[in-house]
């Protein structure tokens, strides 16, 4: 398949998919377990903390199970899962925006999150100050992404979080490759403008 030629599917995916479509939850769970770690990484890039990211992944997998019959193979299974994750995340964001949150409730949560991020660091990892700086940079970048319109968010996340090819993205979103290109250009422009003061070059050594 031309669209997915860039990165092959994990071996055994086709067989597990067939069984999962037949209603076999064990096959679906086995398939999902292959993608669990990657999905959690992506969810952590979008959610505020690990707990929220885990919830997001669980919701995504339940949704994927319910709509497994709609997966038509025009993109990789992991890309399809990630597109569901983006959709759930955007839905949750919209819900959160429509519900006012008291400012007083935000500050302690963020402080706790920073403290937790520092406490969970392995002994050989970066120093607490460095970790806090990275967490802050991640939060800022996340906010900038959240500020993008939904359709631009989807394109940029599929491209840079999932490494999906442009034809894959076009097939998933039901638009032309030209539209995907123009959305990507717009999104990158916005992101570049918004994070002028953010030094992202230091973050690359984190992974």
């Amino acid at each position: 398949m031309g669209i997915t030629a860039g990165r092959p599917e994990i071996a055994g995916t086709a067989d597990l998919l067939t069984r999962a479509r037949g209603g076999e939850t064990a096959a679906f769970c086995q398939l999902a377990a292959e993608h669990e770690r990657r999905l959690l990484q992506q969810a952590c890039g979008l959610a505020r903390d690990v707990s929220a990211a885990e919830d997001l992944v669980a919701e995504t997998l339940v949704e994927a199970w319910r709509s497994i019959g709609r997966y038509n193979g025009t993109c990789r299974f992991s890309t399809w899962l990630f597109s569901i994750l983006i959709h759930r995340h955007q839905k949750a964001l919209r819900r959160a925006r429509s519900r006012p949150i008291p400012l007083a409730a935000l500050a302690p949560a963020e402080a706790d999150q920073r403290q937790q991020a520092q406490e969970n660091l392995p002994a050989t990892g970066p120093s607490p100050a460095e970790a806090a700086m990275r967490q802050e940079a991640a939060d800022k970048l996340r906010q900038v992404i959240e500020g993008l319109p939904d359709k631009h968010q989807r394109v940029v996340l599929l491209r840079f979080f999932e490494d999906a090819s442009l034809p894959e993205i076009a097939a998933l979103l039901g638009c032309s490759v030209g539209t995907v290109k123009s959305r990507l250009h717009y999104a990158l422009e916005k992101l570049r403008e918004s994070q002028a003061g953010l030094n992202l070059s230091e973050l690359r050594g984190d992974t």
Partner: protein
Amino acid sequence: MKTGQSCRKCREAINLRLCGALESEEAARVEAHLAACAECRLYAEEVQATAAGLRWLGSRDVEARPGFRARWTWAVEEAARPSGFGEMAGALVAWGRGLLQRNLRPGLAIASLWVLALVFRLSAPAVSPSTQATVARSPVELFRALEVHTQLLARQVGRQSPAPVEPHSVRPRSEGPPSQPRAHWHHEPGVDVAARELFPHPIAHANTSALLPV
């Protein structure tokens, strides 16, 4: 070379290059432009850093909490169970929550009041024709109603209806003695009993007693 138009095209091409969607010919043109344009070089560095930041954000090493797999597996298995009453109830609760989250509380409150009003109205006793007669808005209306009901009573108790009394003879007690002779029909014991049956509500008696012929 360093015109706004060519810089714009170059920047679009830089973004495409980041996405791996640039033809080799176009890539050569971009390189040539970048060699001559410091602003576009800066742009290319910035946008490259942006892309690197995005890739970093989506691939950080994260440790899942214990029991994570068990939790989502359980959620999938729950979703796979055949739908039943519990699921229906859950869907109803979710729908109700959705209504509340969509700031429909005032609308819901008004709807509940309407429902309550409807239930109250349905559960209230039906209004009998005799009770309707007691809410006459003028002495004349009251008198006509009494006349009708008196005839009804007379039919029920098998007696002859009393002679009709002219409406102008109905006056409040304070205005002195009536010009017409007293209507004696209400002294008859059988009629009194039937009248009580017709006007069982004490308020109805209180409202109308001042207007009854004396």
